[in-house]
């Protein structure tokens, strides 16, 4: 019963916000130049969806996001596990990592365009720099917080270094790494979109920047909405992946016997 009521309230809120907004625009209370009517935004989205050319933009942004995400995550996990295991290397590299992490990533975009051109890879590079650090810090933390008793037990049972990595360190770090994967999806999209926005000829970021150039607020809002849906879909896919990978973690309500 509660679940249904909650859904009804959510629906009512949605209608209230967008209905009020739509009403405000038609009644002349809200300037549609800055806040276009929800129906106009919807029309723009529908116009995009039925236009085959739109999917080229989506697929380009998607490939940039996925590539940036996969490369950034792989590098982050690798470096994180390595520095988590080797405290000395971590100590030596610490100031460099902190400095690199302190650079606002957006300012790197022009440099990546210089190095890699206006195409796909400059956006991927930007996404990688954003994703890397999130995953890196989480993987390092995960490896460092391995239960020492479990580790001793595995060693006594005869695990060598590579067996320890595979059977103890990686699974122990997995929940940390996975939680960072959720956060970094958002970052991968941000990297791709900002890269496109600053200089490109295709992609959702390009669509938004075009609309902005034409003072087409409806287009900008439509682009934002499409992006939000885009991230929500990726997020729900990760949900499924996470539940598959960490079956050993007790689910809510399933307490130990």
């Amino acid at each position: 019963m509660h679940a249904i009521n909650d859904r009804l309230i959510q629906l009512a809120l949605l209608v209230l916000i967008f209905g009020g907004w739509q009403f405000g625009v038609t009644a002349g209370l809200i300037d549609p130049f800055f806040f276009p009517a929800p129906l106009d935004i919807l029309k723009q989205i529908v116009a995009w969806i039925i236009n085959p050319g739109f999917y080229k933009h989506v697929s380009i942004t998607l490939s940039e996001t996925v590539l940036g995400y996969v490369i950034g995550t792989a590098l982050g996990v690798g470096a994180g596990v390595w520095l988590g295991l080797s405290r000395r290397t971590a100590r030596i590299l610490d100031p460099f990592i902190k400095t690199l992490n302190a650079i606002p990533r957006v300012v790197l975009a022009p440099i990546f365009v210089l190095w890699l051109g206006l195409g796909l890879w400059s956006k991927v590079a930007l996404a990688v720099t954003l994703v890397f650090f999130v995953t890196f810090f989480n993987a390092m933390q995960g490896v460092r917080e391995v239960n020492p008793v479990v580790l001793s037990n595995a060693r006594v049972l005869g695990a060598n270094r590579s067996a320890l990595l595979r059977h103890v360190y990686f699974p122990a770090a997995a929940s940390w790494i996975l939680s960072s994967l959720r956060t970094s999806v958002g970052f991968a999209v941000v990297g791709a979109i900002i890269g496109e926005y600053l200089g490109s000829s295709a992609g959702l970021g390009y669509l938004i920047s075009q609309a902005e150039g034409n003072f087409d607020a409806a287009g900008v809002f439509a682009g934002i909405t499409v992006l939000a849906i885009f991230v929500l879909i990726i997020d729900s896919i990760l949900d499924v992946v996470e539940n598959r990978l960490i079956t050993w973690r007790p689910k809510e309500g399933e307490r130990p016997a």
Partner: protein
Amino acid sequence: MSVLARSVPPVSVERRPDPAKPMVEIADVTMAFGDFVAVENVNLNVGDGEFLTVVGPTGCGKSTILNAVAGLLKPAKGTVSIDGQRVTGTGGDIGYLFQQDALLPWKTALENVELGLMFRGVGAAERRAQAMDWLAKVGLAGFEGRYPQQLSGGQRKRVQMAQALITRPKVILMDEPFSALDIHTRHLMQNELLALWQEDRRAVVMITHDLEEAIALGDRVVVLAAGPRSRVIDSFEVDLSRPRDVAEIKLDTRFMELYRNIWASLRGEVEKSYARNK
């Protein structure tokens, strides 16, 4: 049933341990962490098939001795040998029963039990069959697919027992293995442990702060002094017949006599330790 029965080692060949043959030799061992000396000049020999229990006040460095035997810690001075081989690191022929939960939480009961065999390169089918046998042995047939979080404290201890014993190690080390269990579960587990041990009669070093447990399980009880710079101060033979029932043996007059004697020795150290940590 026949699948299980096939891989059980032949029971008829009973191991006849030679108590005169030292299985664990701890020679002049000092364990230190920086300037802190936990134990100093400890000499202990454990014969083949002997069940040695070590008692001492909390914080006297009992565990560090076990960790040296396991190869987890290096002694600052002295040597540890198992069956004449000097211990230089982990991976020796030992089983270790930890006080805390030491199971890998991301592996099922079955996967946990077969770990030791897997690390030794035993094939998948063979180790699976043996692990199933061991789970049955500790009374957990049917629980092989459960993760540690889905088992009770006592069940987790049973899995740990199977995990530590499946490789049939020459030496079994135990660090207060049952201290976290309630008293009834503890008695059950102690009896099961004794039954399992009786089958194979390996050398055991068990650390405990529970003197009753030490006498009920051990062939010999060694008393450690209060730390730091703890050392062995006394050793008592436990001449109680086997097999024993842990709950009933406590009513035996010989048990009570031993208890009085060892407590007389241990009490002073417990008081010293208490005064230091107050």
